[in-house]
Every structure is written in structure tokens, then in C-alpha cells.
């Protein structure tokens, strides 16, 4: 809908297609120059931080899983590790492997959804996933089959496919037997082949030019392999810290236009988390078939075009499946489904690589294990300044486009980041003011 009048004009679009979540985007163009680009995202973690205060130390995994329907496992894993750190407990061995396997399921589900149903339509010249299903049904069939494998991993280990109920601080309520894992494990090789096919498909897409050589890429790095469950936080700018040091290096700023806090590296500014950052900092840790897929797709470890993040996501699906196969083969049920995590007064931080990037949690507990303070920094608030930066440049380079065409360009740029704002009901308004 377009309103005209006065010195400028306002274009209002009621929803931004294929971005899960809610928020708004505002573009201010004055005398042919872009003055401001603001992305407003409503950020549920703020509500949950308050909701968690006064709750028992065992509750964050169940409660924070509700923040995101797409990545509940990420919230659960970061929450568990932060609480365990506060209580001085480390969960290792087969329980850690089981957590990794669960997390692989979520990466597969989330990435496949984004690649095929949300992002691929941009590159294949169709308007939506439904149009894609009509034009190339076999692609959507493949997506559904691949996603089902991810779903089934999460359901088998997590207890159900959404908001897994089998996860608890210290481990799980119940660990699967080898026999229970076997039918699922038997399906993984075919899924791996389909994932490799996905990489070939997306690598053939045509990508708009955009290079973010300036931005610092930040991701976990884990000696055990391609970062997913934990590790140290490293960056292309030399950062190398543990979870307790996060606040020393990252500051969150309130910005007037959004209720989401904007994260920045202290004295360095904006940074980027997510698949492109993970790949840049972990490409040497890819398993063999994922590494071969990345090489076949021509992915440069220094890839800096956000439009090519779809290729990295596809490689990470291969990685997650290859990892899942290895974990299933090596699986021996843990002696106990969880280790005890007795409460104590303390502060603990934990993090993991959600499909969209680093997710950091911090909890303060009193003597009884009651939460007195909770902090959650999700990937999207970390990427938000960088998304605005991309949008600024794209709008600048496309000022000759009419508002509808400009909106399409901006929507595509936002989808590169698969912003995790899917946290329930959601609408995104786009406003362009030209004067």
C-alpha cells in the first residue's frame, strides 16, 4: 500500500515474505541518498530473561526451548551448559555425543527448511515454496524427506519433534538403545546423498554481487570437530575467549528503533555470526564428504558474499548427516541418562552454534539453585547491525528501482541471514520514505 503526500512518500508492506518472525524495516531516502536503514525486530528472549528469574535451575531447558520453534535444541543446549557451568558440572562422553546427535537433527531440519522453502525460491525465479512445489515438485519432495530425517533424529533423542521434552540439565531423561537408533541410522546414508545433491543444486545458483570483507566473522571452534555444541569463541580478528569472557568482549546496546539489543564487539564494532562465520573459522574441521562438497561447490574459506550463505548451509547439512552417521555407529548407551547437577550458588555461561549462529546464555543461581539473573544473546541480535549494513549498501546501489523492486532486493538480503525471529506470531512491515 502506498501513501503519497507532503514532501516524501511512505510505502508500507504488511509482511515480509518468507522471513519467519516479526519486526519491521524502515528505509529513509533523502535527495537520492540513503540516510538511514533500520531493522526493527521484536525479541522474545527479553521476555524470557524476566520469566526465568525465580525459576529453578532445572527449568531453563524446557522454558527457553519455547523461544524458537525452529531451533529449540540450540536453546536447550546453551541453557543446559550454562546451568551446568554454574553448578560446576561437566557433561562429557556418551552424553555429550548424544547431545551432538540431537543438535545434528536440528541443523538438518532448520537448514533444509531455509534452503529449499525460504531461500531457494529467490534463486529459482518463483515467488514461494508453494510455487516451487508446483514447478519442481521433486525438489520439495527431497526437502521434505531430508527434513524428516532431521525431525526424526530430534524426535528419537529429544522425545518429540518440537520443544523436545527429553532434555534436562545433566543430560536426558532417557537415552535410546542401540536397537532404537538402528532404523534411523539405516536411513542416514541416503539422506547424506540427497544432501550432497542439495549442495550441487545451490552451488549452481546465480548470486548477486556483495562482499562483506570488512566485517569480523565470529564463531565457536571446537577441537573435537566442526563447531556445534561448544568450544572457544574465535574470530577473523583474533578473538579467542571462553563463555565467561563473552561480556568482556561483546557489549549489547539499546537502539531507539528496536526492542532487540544490538550486539557489538567492544572497540571493534559490528560482527557476524552464522554459517558463513562458522565455515570461515572451521572449514578445516569438516568431515571428508562435507569438505569434498564444499570444494566441489567452489566455496572459498574466505567467502564473504552473504548471498552464498545458502551454499554454506547446504554443506553444513552434509556435515551434520556425516557427523550423525559417525555418532550412530559409535553409539553406546551411557551408563546413566544424566549426571547429577546439584544446585549451588554460582554464575555460569554456556553457548553453542545454533543454525543461525552463536547463542549465549548466562545464569546466576542462589544457594537453592533459584535463578536470580538470566541473560540470553541470540544470533539475530548479533547479526542485526550487519544486516542493516548490507541493506544500506543494497538500497544505495538500487535507488533507481521502484519501491516494490527495492522491497524484493531488501527481502532477499534479509533472508541471507535466515533471521531467527520465528518465535511465534509474526509480521514484518517495510516502510520506505523518500523525500
Amino acid at each position, binding site marked *: 500500500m502506498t501513501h503519497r503526500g507532503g514532501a516524501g512518500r511512505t510505502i508500507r508492506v504488511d509482511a515480509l515474505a518468507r522471513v*519467519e518472525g516479526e519486526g519491521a524495516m524502515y528505509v529513509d531516502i533523502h535527495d537520492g541518498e540513503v540516510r538511514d536503514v533500520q531493522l526493527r525486530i521484536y525479541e522474545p528472549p527479553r521476555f524470557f530473561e524476566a520469566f526465568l528469574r525465580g525459576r529453578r535451575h532445572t527449568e531453563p531447558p524446557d522454558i527457553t526451548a519455547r523461544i524458537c520453534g525452529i531451533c529449540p535444541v540450540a536453546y536447550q543446549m546453551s541453557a543446559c551448559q550454562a546451568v551446568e557451568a554454574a553448578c560446576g558440572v561437566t557433561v562429557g562422553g556418551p552424553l555429550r555425543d548424544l547431545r551432538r546427535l540431537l543438535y545434528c537433527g536440528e541443523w538438518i531440519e532448520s537448514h533444509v527448511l531455509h534452503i529449499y522453502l525460504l531461500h531457494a525460491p529467490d534463486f529459482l525465479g518463483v515467488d514461494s515454496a508453494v510455487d516451487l*512445489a508446483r514447478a519442481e*515438485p521433486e525438489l520439495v519432495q527431497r526437502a*521434505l524427506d531430508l527434513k524428516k530425517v532431521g*525431525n526424526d533424529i530430534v524426535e528419537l533423542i529429544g522425545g518429540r519433534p518440537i520443544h523436545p521434552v527429553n532434555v534436562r540439565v545433566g543430560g536426558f531423561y532417557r537415552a535410546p538403545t542401540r536397537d532404537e537408533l538402528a532404523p534411523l541410522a539405516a536411513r542416514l546414508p541416503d539422506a547424506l546423498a540427497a544432501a550432497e545433491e542439495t549442495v550441487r543444486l545451490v552451488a549452481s545458483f546465480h548470486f548477486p554481487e556483495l562482499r562483506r570483507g570488512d566485517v569480523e566473522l565470529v564463531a565457536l571452534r571446537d577441537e573435537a570437530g566442526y563447531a556445534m555444541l561448544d568450544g572457544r569463541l574465535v574470530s577473523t580478528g583474533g578473538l579467542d575467549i571462553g563463555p565467561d569472557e563473552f561480556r568482556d568482549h561483546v557489549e549489547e546496546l539499546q537502539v531507539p528503533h528496536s526492542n532487540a539489543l544490538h550486539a557489538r564487539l567492544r572497540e571493534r564494532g559490528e560482527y557476524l555470526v552464522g554459517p558463513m562465520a562458522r565455515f570461515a573459522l572451521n572449514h578445516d574441521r569438516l568431515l571428508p564428504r562435507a569438505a569434498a562438497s564444499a570444494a566441489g561447490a567452489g566455496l572459498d574459506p574466505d567467502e564473504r558474499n552473504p548471498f552464498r550463505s545458502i551454499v554454506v548451509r547446504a554443506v553444513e547439512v552434509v556435515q551434520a548427516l556425516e557427523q550423525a552417521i559417525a555418532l550412530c555407529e559409535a553409539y553406546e548407551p551411557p551408563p546413566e541418562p544424566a549426571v547429577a547437577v546439584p544446585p549451588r550458588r554460582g554464575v555460569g555461561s554456556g553457548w553453542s552454534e545454533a543454525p543461525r549462529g552463536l547463542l549465549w546464555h548466562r545464569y546466576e543461581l542462589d544457594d537453592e539453585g533459584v535463578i536470580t539473573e538470566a541473560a540470553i544473546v541470540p544470533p539475530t541480535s548479533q547479526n542485526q547491525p550487519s544486516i542493516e549494513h548490507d541493506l544500506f549498501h543494497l538500497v544505495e546501489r538500487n535507488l533507481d528501482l521502484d519501491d516494490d523492486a527495492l522491497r524484493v532486493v531488501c527481502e532477499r538480503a534479509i533472508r541471507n541471514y535466515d533471521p531467527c525471529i*520465528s518465535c*511465534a*506470531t509474526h509480521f514484518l512491515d517495510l516502510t520506505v520514505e523518500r523525500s
Partner: protein
Amino acid sequence: MTELVEAPAEAPAPARAVVIGVGNPFRRDDGVGPAVLDALRGSPEVPEGVQLVDSDGEPTRTILAWDGADIAVVIDAVHTGAAPGTVHRVDPDAVPEGGRAGGSHALGPGEAIALGRATGRIPRRVVLIGVEVTDTSMGVGLSKGVAAAVGPVAHLVLHELGVGSTEGGDGN
């Protein structure tokens, strides 16, 4: 439901049914779908084998939930301007593809139905039940009118599954 009837050898396989409750219980009224599932979990009338699935409404999750079923009943929050708690039985053919006019979820039942049809992964019968909501802010608990609809909607679901009465269930 405990009556024992010997099935004839050539009896057709019983219909596989799934009930999908869409919504987020931390967005107040948006949690009405899962609340109906909770009510059904406590009901002895739910036929054995009926799957009750919580969902965030993401369409591929809906498709994977109903894949292979003969009947799917989907309960979602809707916002049409009617009184909170009003129950709408929505014709699946009338749901817009974007899903927004029907459900409150950006990728909603409309997409799931269209995607399901395009891929042949849709039950023979899909029943959409929309419950009019009013407060979808962050928080837990349903507003009064919506909470009052949970029982009747559970009855309506049972009716769609071929059991229970429709008492109070058809508020359309």
C-alpha cells in the same frame, strides 16, 4: 470405547488420524491449539492410535505430522475480528495460501495445504478449526473467552474423529 467387537478378517485398516495443535503457549492466546491437545491428552474418549502433535505451524512440520494419515484435524489461533473464543470450522479450500488471513502464523496452514497438495502429501480429509484469539503478547495463560473455548473445541475434534458429542463444539 471399551466395547469389544471381533473385527471381520477382511475389515479395512482403521483410518489413521492425527490432531495437530498449532501455537506457542508463551504467546498467551496463541497457545490455544496446544491447550486443546492437553485437554485431549486427558480424555479417555480419544481413540487409540490417534496422534496428538504440538506444532509451531511451520508448514513442513505440519506436512510431516500428517504424512500417511487419512484424516488430520488442525487447530490454530485465528484473528478475524469475531468475539474471542469464537470457533471457526474453516474450509481447507478457502484458506489463502499465505495463511495469514486464516491463521496467525506467517507460514501457516494455507502453505501446508498448498504444499501438501503439490507434493501429494496430504490426508484425504483435512479439518481446520480456528479459534478466535485476542491477546498474543508474550506471557502464559489464555484469556477468558479463549480458555472457555478449549473444552468445546476438544469435543469438536472428537466429533471429527467420529467419537464424542458435538455439544457446544460448533460455535461457527
